[in-house]
Protein backbone atom coordinates (compact mmCIF):
# COMPACT_ATOMS: atom_id res chain seq x y z
CA UNK A 1 0.00 0.00 0.00
CA UNK A 2 1.67 3.16 -1.15
CA UNK A 3 1.02 5.94 1.32
CA UNK A 4 2.56 9.33 0.60
CA UNK A 5 4.19 9.94 3.94
CA UNK A 6 7.16 12.19 3.70
CA UNK A 7 8.64 15.15 2.05
CA UNK A 8 7.71 16.51 -1.30
CA UNK A 9 10.56 18.13 -3.23
CA UNK A 10 9.94 21.81 -2.59
CA UNK A 11 9.94 24.43 -5.32
CA UNK A 12 13.39 25.90 -5.84
CA UNK A 13 12.24 29.49 -5.75
CA UNK A 14 9.46 31.22 -3.93
CA UNK A 15 7.27 30.26 -1.03
CA UNK A 16 8.13 27.82 1.71
CA UNK A 17 8.00 24.18 0.58
CA UNK A 18 4.83 22.30 1.37
CA UNK A 19 5.32 19.24 3.51
CA UNK A 20 2.88 16.37 3.30
CA UNK A 21 2.06 15.14 6.78
CA UNK A 22 2.59 11.49 7.65
CA UNK A 23 -0.74 9.80 8.36
CA UNK A 24 -1.80 9.18 11.95
CA UNK A 25 -0.04 6.47 13.94
CA UNK A 26 -2.91 3.98 14.04
CA UNK A 27 -3.37 4.28 10.31
CA UNK A 28 0.28 3.54 9.65
CA UNK A 29 0.27 0.71 12.22
CA UNK A 30 -2.78 -0.92 10.63
CA UNK A 31 -1.29 -0.46 7.16
CA UNK A 32 1.83 -2.30 8.27
CA UNK A 33 -0.01 -4.97 10.28
CA UNK A 34 -2.83 -6.34 8.15
CA UNK A 35 -0.63 -7.91 5.44
CA UNK A 36 1.31 -9.73 8.17
CA UNK A 37 -1.88 -11.00 9.82
CA UNK A 38 -3.12 -12.21 6.45
CA UNK A 39 0.17 -14.04 5.81
CA UNK A 40 -0.04 -15.74 9.21
CA UNK A 41 -3.65 -16.74 8.57
CA UNK A 42 -2.65 -18.30 5.24
CA UNK A 43 0.23 -20.28 6.81
CA UNK A 44 -1.98 -21.55 9.64
CA UNK A 45 -4.69 -22.42 7.10
CA UNK A 46 -2.31 -24.42 4.90
CA UNK A 47 -0.92 -26.17 7.98
CA UNK A 48 -4.46 -27.12 9.12
CA UNK A 49 -5.35 -28.38 5.64
CA UNK A 50 -2.25 -30.61 5.64
CA UNK A 51 -3.36 -32.01 8.99
CA UNK A 52 -6.89 -32.67 7.66
CA UNK A 53 -5.45 -34.39 4.58
CA UNK A 54 -3.54 -36.70 6.98
CA UNK A 55 -0.28 -36.48 5.01
CA UNK A 56 1.36 -37.51 8.28
CA UNK A 57 -0.33 -39.07 11.28
CA UNK A 58 -1.78 -36.47 13.66
CA UNK A 59 0.56 -37.36 16.54
CA UNK A 60 3.54 -36.51 14.25
CA UNK A 61 2.22 -33.28 12.79
CA UNK A 62 -0.23 -31.83 15.31
CA UNK A 63 -2.87 -29.32 14.31
CA UNK A 64 -1.87 -25.66 14.72
CA UNK A 65 -4.56 -25.20 17.36
CA UNK A 66 -3.20 -28.07 19.44
CA UNK A 67 0.20 -26.34 19.32
CA UNK A 68 -1.24 -22.91 20.21
CA UNK A 69 -3.13 -24.49 23.10
CA UNK A 70 0.05 -26.13 24.34
CA UNK A 71 1.94 -22.86 24.02
CA UNK A 72 -0.66 -21.06 26.13
CA UNK A 73 -0.40 -23.84 28.68
CA UNK A 74 3.44 -23.94 28.70
CA UNK A 75 3.99 -20.21 28.36
CA UNK A 76 5.95 -20.02 31.59
CA UNK A 77 8.45 -22.64 30.55
CA UNK A 78 8.79 -21.13 27.07
CA UNK A 79 9.31 -17.66 28.52
CA UNK A 80 11.97 -18.89 30.98
CA UNK A 81 13.83 -20.71 28.23
CA UNK A 82 13.53 -17.67 25.96
CA UNK A 83 14.98 -15.40 28.64
CA UNK A 84 17.94 -17.74 29.17
CA UNK A 85 18.57 -17.75 25.43
CA UNK A 86 18.05 -14.01 24.99
CA UNK A 87 20.48 -13.28 27.81
CA UNK A 88 23.12 -15.38 26.08
CA UNK A 89 22.29 -13.75 22.77
CA UNK A 90 22.50 -10.23 24.14
CA UNK A 91 25.77 -10.88 25.93
CA UNK A 92 27.30 -12.55 22.87
CA UNK A 93 26.07 -9.76 20.65
CA UNK A 94 27.61 -7.12 22.94
CA UNK A 95 30.97 -8.89 22.84
CA UNK A 96 30.63 -9.26 19.05
CA UNK A 97 29.91 -5.53 18.79
CA UNK A 98 33.05 -4.70 20.77
CA UNK A 99 35.28 -7.05 18.79
CA UNK A 100 33.64 -6.44 15.41
CA UNK A 101 33.63 -2.68 15.99
CA UNK A 102 37.28 -2.51 16.93
CA UNK A 103 38.39 -4.77 14.11
CA UNK A 104 36.16 -2.92 11.63
CA UNK A 105 37.54 0.53 12.46
CA UNK A 106 41.11 -0.79 12.51
CA UNK A 107 40.78 -2.52 9.14
CA UNK A 108 39.08 0.48 7.56
CA UNK A 109 41.76 2.90 8.73
CA UNK A 110 44.99 0.85 8.59
CA UNK A 111 46.14 -0.19 5.12
CA UNK A 112 48.32 -3.10 6.23
CA UNK A 113 45.52 -4.62 8.28
CA UNK A 114 43.13 -4.32 5.37
CA UNK A 115 45.56 -6.09 3.07
CA UNK A 116 46.12 -8.76 5.73
CA UNK A 117 42.63 -9.62 6.95
CA UNK A 118 40.15 -7.54 4.94
CA UNK A 119 39.04 -10.34 2.64
CA UNK A 120 39.17 -12.94 5.41
CA UNK A 121 36.40 -11.17 7.29
CA UNK A 122 34.01 -11.87 4.42
CA UNK A 123 35.29 -15.44 4.36
CA UNK A 124 34.47 -15.83 8.04
CA UNK A 125 31.02 -14.43 7.39
CA UNK A 126 30.22 -17.19 4.89
CA UNK A 127 31.32 -19.92 7.31
CA UNK A 128 28.27 -21.82 8.66
CA UNK A 129 28.09 -21.30 12.40
CA UNK A 130 27.56 -25.01 13.14
CA UNK A 131 31.03 -25.59 11.73
CA UNK A 132 32.48 -23.77 14.74
CA UNK A 133 30.71 -25.90 17.33
CA UNK A 134 33.09 -28.89 17.45
CA UNK A 135 36.09 -26.59 17.84
CA UNK A 136 34.25 -24.62 20.53
CA UNK A 137 33.54 -27.84 22.42
CA UNK A 138 37.20 -28.85 22.22
CA UNK A 139 38.24 -25.42 23.54
CA UNK A 140 35.54 -24.86 26.16
CA UNK A 141 34.13 -28.36 26.83
CA UNK A 142 30.49 -27.81 27.70
CA UNK A 143 29.05 -24.55 28.94
CA UNK A 144 28.52 -20.88 28.30
CA UNK A 145 31.94 -20.57 26.66
CA UNK A 146 30.88 -22.73 23.71
CA UNK A 147 27.77 -20.68 23.08
CA UNK A 148 29.58 -17.39 23.48
CA UNK A 149 32.37 -18.43 21.13
CA UNK A 150 29.97 -19.48 18.39
CA UNK A 151 27.73 -16.43 18.72
CA UNK A 152 30.63 -13.97 18.64
CA UNK A 153 32.21 -15.63 15.62
CA UNK A 154 28.84 -15.62 13.91
CA UNK A 155 28.04 -11.96 14.47
CA UNK A 156 31.37 -10.12 14.61
CA UNK A 157 32.30 -10.44 10.89
CA UNK A 158 28.99 -8.91 9.78
CA UNK A 159 29.37 -6.05 12.24
CA UNK A 160 32.97 -5.41 11.15
CA UNK A 161 31.98 -5.55 7.49
CA UNK A 162 29.18 -3.03 8.05
CA UNK A 163 31.65 -0.60 9.59
CA UNK A 164 34.30 -1.12 6.89
CA UNK A 165 31.74 -0.71 4.16
CA UNK A 166 30.32 2.42 5.77
CA UNK A 167 33.72 4.07 6.18
CA UNK A 168 34.79 3.11 2.65
CA UNK A 169 31.71 4.67 1.14
CA UNK A 170 31.68 8.01 2.90
CA UNK A 171 31.14 10.44 0.00
CA UNK A 172 34.52 12.13 -0.72
CA UNK A 173 32.79 15.50 -1.02
CA UNK A 174 31.73 15.26 2.65
CA UNK A 175 35.28 14.45 3.71
CA UNK A 176 36.45 17.45 1.71
CA UNK A 177 33.77 19.67 3.23
CA UNK A 178 34.87 18.51 6.68
CA UNK A 179 38.51 19.23 5.92
CA UNK A 180 37.65 22.71 4.64
CA UNK A 181 35.76 23.39 7.87
CA UNK A 182 38.82 22.33 9.83
CA UNK A 183 37.93 18.76 10.83
CA UNK A 184 41.15 16.77 10.79
CA UNK A 185 42.28 13.51 12.36
CA UNK A 186 40.09 12.41 15.25
CA UNK A 187 37.63 15.30 14.78
CA UNK A 188 37.10 14.18 11.21
CA UNK A 189 36.48 10.60 12.36
CA UNK A 190 34.05 11.67 15.07
CA UNK A 191 32.18 14.47 13.29
CA UNK A 192 32.21 13.30 9.68
CA UNK A 193 33.27 9.70 9.07
CA UNK A 194 31.30 7.89 11.79
CA UNK A 195 28.01 9.78 11.28
CA UNK A 196 28.33 9.35 7.52
CA UNK A 197 28.94 5.62 7.97
CA UNK A 198 26.09 5.14 10.44
CA UNK A 199 23.41 3.77 8.06
CA UNK A 200 25.79 1.07 6.90
CA UNK A 201 26.91 0.35 10.47
CA UNK A 202 23.29 -0.21 11.53
CA UNK A 203 22.73 -2.52 8.55
CA UNK A 204 25.81 -4.45 9.69
CA UNK A 205 24.41 -4.70 13.23
CA UNK A 206 21.08 -5.92 11.87
CA UNK A 207 22.76 -8.59 9.81
CA UNK A 208 25.05 -9.38 12.73
CA UNK A 209 22.03 -10.04 14.93
CA UNK A 210 20.55 -12.42 12.35
CA UNK A 211 23.82 -14.36 12.30
CA UNK A 212 24.09 -14.24 16.09
CA UNK A 213 20.59 -15.68 16.51
CA UNK A 214 21.23 -18.54 14.08
CA UNK A 215 24.58 -19.31 15.68
CA UNK A 216 22.98 -19.25 19.09
CA UNK A 217 20.41 -21.86 18.03
CA UNK A 218 23.09 -24.04 16.45
CA UNK A 219 25.16 -23.86 19.62
CA UNK A 220 22.20 -24.51 21.95
CA UNK A 221 21.05 -27.52 19.93
CA UNK A 222 24.41 -29.17 20.28
CA UNK A 223 25.73 -27.92 23.59
CA UNK A 224 23.71 -28.76 26.70
CA UNK A 225 24.16 -26.96 29.96
CA UNK A 226 22.29 -28.64 32.82
CA UNK A 227 20.16 -26.21 34.78
CA UNK A 228 20.29 -23.51 32.11
CA UNK A 229 17.77 -24.58 29.53
CA UNK A 230 17.55 -22.27 26.56
CA UNK A 231 14.95 -22.42 23.86
CA UNK A 232 17.33 -24.31 21.54
CA UNK A 233 17.93 -26.93 24.20
CA UNK A 234 14.19 -27.18 24.72
CA UNK A 235 13.83 -27.89 21.01
CA UNK A 236 16.62 -30.44 21.09
CA UNK A 237 15.23 -32.34 24.08
CA UNK A 238 11.67 -32.26 22.68
CA UNK A 239 13.00 -33.84 19.52
CA UNK A 240 14.84 -36.55 21.42
CA UNK A 241 11.73 -37.36 23.47
CA UNK A 242 9.58 -37.48 20.30
CA UNK A 243 7.46 -34.68 21.80
CA UNK A 244 6.23 -33.36 18.46
CA UNK A 245 4.03 -30.65 19.94
CA UNK A 246 7.05 -29.46 21.95
CA UNK A 247 9.15 -29.26 18.78
CA UNK A 248 6.57 -27.04 17.14
CA UNK A 249 6.21 -24.90 20.27
CA UNK A 250 9.95 -24.27 20.43
CA UNK A 251 10.27 -23.55 16.71
CA UNK A 252 7.43 -21.06 16.73
CA UNK A 253 8.95 -19.33 19.76
CA UNK A 254 12.34 -19.10 18.05
CA UNK A 255 10.72 -17.62 14.98
CA UNK A 256 8.66 -15.09 16.95
CA UNK A 257 11.67 -13.88 18.94
CA UNK A 258 13.74 -13.52 15.76
CA UNK A 259 11.04 -11.47 14.07
CA UNK A 260 10.32 -9.30 17.11
CA UNK A 261 13.95 -8.44 17.85
CA UNK A 262 14.68 -7.68 14.21
CA UNK A 263 11.59 -5.57 13.64
CA UNK A 264 11.36 -3.79 16.98
CA UNK A 265 15.05 -3.13 17.37
CA UNK A 266 17.11 -3.10 14.22
CA UNK A 267 14.33 -2.49 11.72
CA UNK A 268 13.11 0.56 13.60
CA UNK A 269 16.61 1.96 14.06
CA UNK A 270 17.44 1.30 10.43
CA UNK A 271 14.31 3.04 9.14
CA UNK A 272 14.63 5.98 11.52
CA UNK A 273 18.20 6.60 10.37
CA UNK A 274 17.39 6.23 6.72
CA UNK A 275 14.47 8.60 6.99
CA UNK A 276 16.64 11.11 8.84
CA UNK A 277 19.43 10.91 6.27
CA UNK A 278 16.96 11.22 3.40
CA UNK A 279 17.91 7.76 2.12
CA UNK A 280 14.37 6.49 1.74
CA UNK A 281 12.11 7.66 -0.91
CA UNK A 282 9.17 9.93 -0.13
CA UNK A 283 6.73 7.02 0.06
CA UNK A 284 8.72 6.04 3.14
CA UNK A 285 8.15 2.27 3.09
Amino acid at each position, binding site marked *: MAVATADVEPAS*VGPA*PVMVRRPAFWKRAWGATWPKLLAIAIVVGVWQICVWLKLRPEFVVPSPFTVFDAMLHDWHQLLDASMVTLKRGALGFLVAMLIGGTVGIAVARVKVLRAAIGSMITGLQTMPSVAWVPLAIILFHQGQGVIMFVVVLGAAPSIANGIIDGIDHVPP*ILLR*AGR*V*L*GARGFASLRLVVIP*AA*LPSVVSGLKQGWAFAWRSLMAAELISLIPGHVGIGQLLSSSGEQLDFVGVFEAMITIFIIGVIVDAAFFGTADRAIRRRYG*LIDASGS
Partner: protein
Amino acid sequence: MNLRSDESARLASGSIPPIDPEAKARPVVSIADATKVFGAGSQQVVALEGVTLDVERGDFVCLLGASGCGKSTLLNLIAGLDKPTTGRVDVRAERTGLMFQEAALFPWLTVRGNVEIALKLAGVPRTERRSRAAELLELVHLGDFAKRRPHELSGGMRQRVALARALAQDADVLLMDEPFGALDAMTRDRLHDELEALWTSTGKTIIFVTHNVREAVRLGDCVVLLASRPGRVAAVYDVTIPRPRRIDSAEVATLAAKITDQLREEGSRGRRDR
Protein backbone atom coordinates in the same frame (compact mmCIF):
# COMPACT_ATOMS: atom_id res chain seq x y z
CA MET B 1 43.21 40.16 17.41
CA ASN B 2 40.03 38.28 17.90
CA LEU B 3 38.14 38.38 14.63
CA ARG B 4 35.48 36.04 15.84
CA SER B 5 33.91 38.06 18.61
CA ASP B 6 33.25 41.09 16.46
CA GLU B 7 31.83 39.11 13.58
CA SER B 8 28.22 39.74 14.49
CA ALA B 9 28.90 43.45 14.95
CA ARG B 10 30.58 43.49 11.59
CA LEU B 11 27.70 41.65 9.97
CA ALA B 12 25.30 44.21 11.39
CA SER B 13 27.21 47.41 10.76
CA GLY B 14 29.00 46.44 7.60
CA SER B 15 32.30 47.81 8.82
CA ILE B 16 35.59 46.08 8.11
CA PRO B 17 37.47 44.93 11.21
CA PRO B 18 40.54 46.89 12.20
CA ILE B 19 43.65 45.63 10.48
CA ASP B 20 47.11 46.97 11.07
CA PRO B 21 48.03 49.48 8.33
CA GLU B 22 50.94 47.48 6.97
CA ALA B 23 48.79 44.41 6.39
CA LYS B 24 46.10 46.50 4.77
CA ALA B 25 48.53 47.80 2.19
CA ARG B 26 49.45 44.30 1.07
CA PRO B 27 47.15 42.14 -1.04
CA VAL B 28 45.33 39.49 0.97
CA VAL B 29 46.19 36.82 -1.61
CA SER B 30 49.32 37.06 -3.68
CA ILE B 31 50.28 34.41 -6.15
CA ALA B 32 53.71 34.76 -7.70
CA ASP B 33 54.65 32.69 -10.75
CA ALA B 34 52.85 29.63 -9.45
CA THR B 35 53.07 26.43 -11.45
CA LYS B 36 51.31 23.19 -10.65
CA VAL B 37 52.25 19.92 -12.30
CA PHE B 38 50.38 16.67 -11.70
CA GLY B 39 51.92 13.27 -12.37
CA ALA B 40 55.37 12.59 -13.78
CA GLY B 41 57.03 11.49 -17.01
CA SER B 42 54.76 10.92 -19.99
CA GLN B 43 51.71 11.13 -17.70
CA GLN B 44 52.69 14.64 -16.64
CA VAL B 45 50.00 17.30 -16.84
CA VAL B 46 50.76 20.98 -16.37
CA ALA B 47 47.61 22.33 -14.70
CA LEU B 48 48.90 25.85 -14.06
CA GLU B 49 51.86 27.67 -15.54
CA GLY B 50 53.36 30.91 -14.28
CA VAL B 51 50.21 32.30 -12.69
CA THR B 52 50.71 35.69 -11.04
CA LEU B 53 47.75 37.30 -9.35
CA ASP B 54 47.13 39.71 -6.47
CA VAL B 55 43.81 40.03 -4.72
CA GLU B 56 43.22 43.08 -2.52
CA ARG B 57 41.35 42.86 0.76
CA GLY B 58 37.62 43.26 0.22
CA ASP B 59 37.82 42.55 -3.52
CA PHE B 60 35.32 40.45 -5.42
CA VAL B 61 37.39 38.60 -8.02
CA CYS B 62 35.94 36.21 -10.58
CA LEU B 63 38.19 33.55 -12.12
CA LEU B 64 36.75 32.75 -15.52
CA GLY B 65 37.73 29.96 -17.87
CA ALA B 66 36.63 26.90 -19.78
CA SER B 67 36.66 23.54 -18.02
CA GLY B 68 40.14 22.13 -17.59
CA CYS B 69 41.83 25.52 -17.32
CA GLY B 70 43.00 24.86 -13.78
CA LYS B 71 40.43 27.08 -12.01
CA SER B 72 39.79 24.55 -9.28
CA THR B 73 43.49 23.78 -8.94
CA LEU B 74 44.16 27.47 -8.38
CA LEU B 75 41.40 27.61 -5.78
CA ASN B 76 42.83 24.58 -3.97
CA LEU B 77 46.22 26.31 -3.85
CA ILE B 78 44.66 29.42 -2.30
CA ALA B 79 42.65 27.30 0.15
CA GLY B 80 45.86 25.58 1.21
CA LEU B 81 44.49 22.16 0.24
CA ASP B 82 47.39 21.77 -2.21
CA LYS B 83 50.85 23.24 -2.72
CA PRO B 84 52.30 24.78 -5.90
CA THR B 85 55.04 22.80 -7.66
CA THR B 86 57.03 26.02 -8.09
CA GLY B 87 56.32 29.65 -7.25
CA ARG B 88 54.58 31.09 -4.21
CA VAL B 89 51.04 31.37 -2.94
CA ASP B 90 50.71 33.72 0.04
CA VAL B 91 47.42 34.11 1.84
CA ARG B 92 47.40 36.79 4.53
CA ALA B 93 44.22 35.68 6.21
CA GLU B 94 43.60 33.66 9.34
CA ARG B 95 41.17 31.43 7.53
CA THR B 96 39.76 30.77 4.11
CA GLY B 97 36.26 29.47 3.56
CA LEU B 98 35.46 27.25 0.60
CA MET B 99 32.16 26.51 -1.13
CA PHE B 100 31.72 23.90 -3.86
CA GLN B 101 29.33 23.35 -6.72
CA GLU B 102 27.60 20.76 -4.57
CA ALA B 103 26.30 22.03 -1.25
CA ALA B 104 28.06 19.06 0.47
CA LEU B 105 25.88 19.43 3.56
CA PHE B 106 26.02 16.75 6.23
CA PRO B 107 22.77 14.79 5.79
CA TRP B 108 22.63 13.63 9.41
CA LEU B 109 22.44 17.19 10.73
CA THR B 110 19.66 19.72 10.51
CA VAL B 111 20.19 22.96 8.65
CA ARG B 112 21.09 24.58 11.95
CA GLY B 113 23.38 21.69 12.86
CA ASN B 114 25.28 22.13 9.62
CA VAL B 115 25.99 25.74 10.50
CA GLU B 116 26.74 24.95 14.14
CA ILE B 117 29.34 22.30 13.28
CA ALA B 118 31.26 24.95 11.32
CA LEU B 119 31.05 27.29 14.32
CA LYS B 120 32.21 24.47 16.60
CA LEU B 121 35.22 23.72 14.40
CA ALA B 122 35.99 27.45 14.26
CA GLY B 123 36.22 27.40 18.06
CA VAL B 124 33.03 29.31 18.89
CA PRO B 125 31.90 28.43 22.44
CA ARG B 126 28.84 26.21 22.73
CA THR B 127 26.68 28.89 24.35
CA GLU B 128 27.08 31.27 21.41
CA ARG B 129 26.58 28.75 18.62
CA ARG B 130 22.80 28.62 18.65
CA SER B 131 22.34 32.38 18.33
CA ARG B 132 25.16 32.79 15.81
CA ALA B 133 23.70 30.03 13.64
CA ALA B 134 20.30 31.74 13.78
CA GLU B 135 21.87 35.04 12.68
CA LEU B 136 23.69 33.42 9.79
CA LEU B 137 20.56 31.60 8.64
CA GLU B 138 18.62 34.87 8.74
CA LEU B 139 21.35 36.37 6.59
CA VAL B 140 20.75 33.79 3.85
CA HIS B 141 16.95 34.01 4.29
CA LEU B 142 16.57 30.56 5.79
CA GLY B 143 15.59 31.58 9.32
CA ASP B 144 12.45 29.42 9.19
CA PHE B 145 14.26 26.31 7.99
CA ALA B 146 16.65 25.77 10.89
CA LYS B 147 15.10 22.45 11.91
CA ARG B 148 14.79 20.99 8.42
CA ARG B 149 17.17 18.39 7.05
CA PRO B 150 19.19 18.97 3.87
CA HIS B 151 17.21 16.43 1.84
CA GLU B 152 14.04 18.40 2.50
CA LEU B 153 15.41 21.51 0.78
CA SER B 154 15.66 22.57 -2.84
CA GLY B 155 19.03 22.95 -4.56
CA GLY B 156 19.03 26.72 -4.14
CA MET B 157 18.24 26.46 -0.45
CA ARG B 158 20.98 23.92 0.06
CA GLN B 159 23.49 26.28 -1.52
CA ARG B 160 22.27 29.01 0.83
CA VAL B 161 22.93 26.72 3.78
CA ALA B 162 26.38 25.99 2.35
CA LEU B 163 26.94 29.75 2.13
CA ALA B 164 25.85 30.22 5.73
CA ARG B 165 28.18 27.38 6.73
CA ALA B 166 31.08 28.97 4.85
CA LEU B 167 30.34 32.31 6.53
CA ALA B 168 30.25 30.56 9.91
CA GLN B 169 33.94 29.80 9.52
CA ASP B 170 34.45 33.53 9.78
CA ALA B 171 37.03 33.41 7.03
CA ASP B 172 38.40 36.69 5.69
CA VAL B 173 38.62 35.14 2.26
CA LEU B 174 35.69 33.23 0.81
CA LEU B 175 36.53 30.91 -2.08
CA MET B 176 33.62 29.79 -4.22
CA ASP B 177 34.06 27.00 -6.78
CA GLU B 178 31.19 27.34 -9.29
CA PRO B 179 28.75 27.44 -6.38
CA PHE B 180 25.69 28.19 -8.50
CA GLY B 181 26.67 26.03 -11.47
CA ALA B 182 24.03 23.39 -10.85
CA LEU B 183 21.11 25.76 -10.22
CA ASP B 184 18.38 26.94 -12.55
CA ALA B 185 18.68 30.46 -13.94
CA MET B 186 16.01 32.04 -11.75
CA THR B 187 17.43 30.69 -8.53
CA ARG B 188 20.89 31.69 -9.64
CA ASP B 189 19.83 35.28 -10.29
CA ARG B 190 18.34 35.53 -6.82
CA LEU B 191 21.46 34.14 -5.24
CA HIS B 192 23.59 36.61 -7.21
CA ASP B 193 21.58 39.45 -5.67
CA GLU B 194 21.91 37.94 -2.22
CA LEU B 195 25.63 37.31 -2.56
CA GLU B 196 26.24 40.85 -3.79
CA ALA B 197 24.29 42.30 -0.85
CA LEU B 198 26.15 40.04 1.55
CA TRP B 199 29.52 40.99 0.15
CA THR B 200 28.65 44.70 0.37
CA SER B 201 27.59 44.37 3.99
CA THR B 202 30.39 42.11 5.26
CA GLY B 203 33.37 43.41 3.30
CA LYS B 204 34.77 39.91 2.80
CA THR B 205 37.21 39.10 0.06
CA ILE B 206 35.52 36.78 -2.42
CA ILE B 207 37.24 34.71 -5.09
CA PHE B 208 34.57 33.22 -7.30
CA VAL B 209 35.27 30.57 -9.95
CA THR B 210 32.90 30.24 -12.88
CA HIS B 211 32.75 29.28 -16.54
CA ASN B 212 29.77 31.57 -17.10
CA VAL B 213 30.96 34.89 -18.59
CA ARG B 214 27.84 36.85 -17.65
CA GLU B 215 27.92 35.55 -14.12
CA ALA B 216 31.54 36.70 -13.81
CA VAL B 217 30.72 40.19 -15.12
CA ARG B 218 27.55 40.36 -13.00
CA LEU B 219 29.44 39.69 -9.78
CA GLY B 220 33.10 40.65 -10.00
CA ASP B 221 35.04 43.88 -9.44
CA CYS B 222 37.51 42.23 -11.64
CA VAL B 223 37.37 39.25 -14.00
CA VAL B 224 40.49 37.17 -14.45
CA LEU B 225 40.36 35.25 -17.71
CA LEU B 226 42.27 31.97 -17.56
CA ALA B 227 43.51 30.18 -20.66
CA SER B 228 43.61 26.38 -20.85
CA ARG B 229 46.33 23.77 -21.21
CA PRO B 230 48.35 24.88 -19.41
CA GLY B 231 46.23 27.12 -17.19
CA ARG B 232 47.54 30.69 -17.17
CA VAL B 233 46.20 34.22 -16.82
CA ALA B 234 45.20 35.43 -20.31
CA ALA B 235 43.65 38.79 -19.43
CA VAL B 236 42.29 40.77 -16.49
CA TYR B 237 39.22 43.00 -16.86
CA ASP B 238 38.19 45.60 -14.32
CA VAL B 239 34.44 45.79 -14.08
CA THR B 240 33.27 49.31 -13.24
CA ILE B 241 29.55 48.82 -13.86
CA PRO B 242 27.79 50.35 -10.80
CA ARG B 243 26.14 48.04 -8.28
CA PRO B 244 23.62 46.63 -7.73
CA ARG B 245 23.91 45.07 -11.16
CA ARG B 246 21.50 43.01 -13.19
CA ILE B 247 22.66 40.03 -15.22
CA ASP B 248 20.44 41.06 -18.16
CA SER B 249 21.54 44.72 -18.26
CA ALA B 250 23.07 46.12 -21.46
CA GLU B 251 26.40 46.99 -19.77
CA VAL B 252 26.84 43.47 -18.48
CA ALA B 253 25.93 42.04 -21.89
CA THR B 254 28.41 44.30 -23.72
CA LEU B 255 31.36 43.49 -21.50
CA ALA B 256 30.41 39.81 -21.48
CA ALA B 257 30.39 39.79 -25.30
CA LYS B 258 33.86 41.33 -25.36
CA ILE B 259 35.21 38.77 -22.91
CA THR B 260 33.54 35.94 -24.79
CA ASP B 261 35.34 37.00 -27.98
CA GLN B 262 38.65 36.93 -26.15
CA LEU B 263 37.76 33.55 -24.66
CA ARG B 264 37.09 32.17 -28.17
CA GLU B 265 40.40 33.50 -29.38
CA GLU B 266 42.18 31.81 -26.47
CA GLY B 267 40.33 28.61 -27.34
CA SER B 268 41.42 28.63 -30.98
CA ARG B 269 44.96 29.57 -30.02
CA GLY B 270 45.00 26.56 -27.74
CA ARG B 271 43.92 24.32 -30.62
CA ARG B 272 46.63 25.68 -32.92
CA ASP B 273 49.26 25.04 -30.27
CA ARG B 274 48.25 21.40 -30.09
